[in-house]
């Protein structure tokens, strides 16, 4: 029974992503929304945290939030999945529970 974790804050400003990654269990899904999508950028001081968990967690990024911020898929850590709001809904229904790391 895996869980969905949503993160809506920039990892450069706030510890939400870092804390979520420390608590997420093998098989859980991490969804980056709002300013949380900055966590998906590769080659940053924060990228290592996601990279270290790329095997035992699944990562998703809300594409509407990415394009609003002028970020393109090529700038992101490899292996992340871009989804729309319908995909967000599917993540919610296919996981037992969800937690928002506010």
């Amino acid at each position, binding site marked *: 029974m895996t869980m969905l974790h949503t993160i*809506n804050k920039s990892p450069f400003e706030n510890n939400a992503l870092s804390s979520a990654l420390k608590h997420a269990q093998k098989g859980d899904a991490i969804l980056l929304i709002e300013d949380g999508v900055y966590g998906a950028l590769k080659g940053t001081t924060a990228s290592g945290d996601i990279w270290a968990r790329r095997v035992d967690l699944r990562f998703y990024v809300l594409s509407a939030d990415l394009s609003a911020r002028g970020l393109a898929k090529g700038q992101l850590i490899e292996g992340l999945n871009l989804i729309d709001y319908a995909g967000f*809904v599917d993540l919610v*229904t296919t996981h037992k529970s*969800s937690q928002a790391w*506010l």
Partner: protein
Amino acid sequence: MKISILVNEGPYTHQASDSAYQFTKAALEKGHEVFRVFFYNDGVNNGTRLTVPPQDDRNIQKNWSELAEKHKLDLVVCIAAAQRRGILDEGEAKRHGKGDGAANIAPGFRISGLGQLIEMGIESDRLVVFGD
């Protein structure tokens, strides 16, 4: 599935209410039942009818009110949080002597207690939280 949504921030200042709105719309479009949307903390400020956003921007309150009408959504504003922040319905405005016409709750929203939040956690298959 039966889904409920909790909104913890007011309109415009944080993206929470926009995200919650887009999520709710997507859930309805996929055929899910939205059991309730509960507005808590500054989220109660989504329920004021007095906002006048710039013409070239979205109207968050109107978006919610129209979605509620179209899908018979239950939009509940927490009474304790609303009193702290100045969101009142007619009964509340009268009870606290704020004068005729002072009620500022928007169409489609209703004010009720925190029990409604717990109930939606119990009754729904999933609860999704949006905040700051």
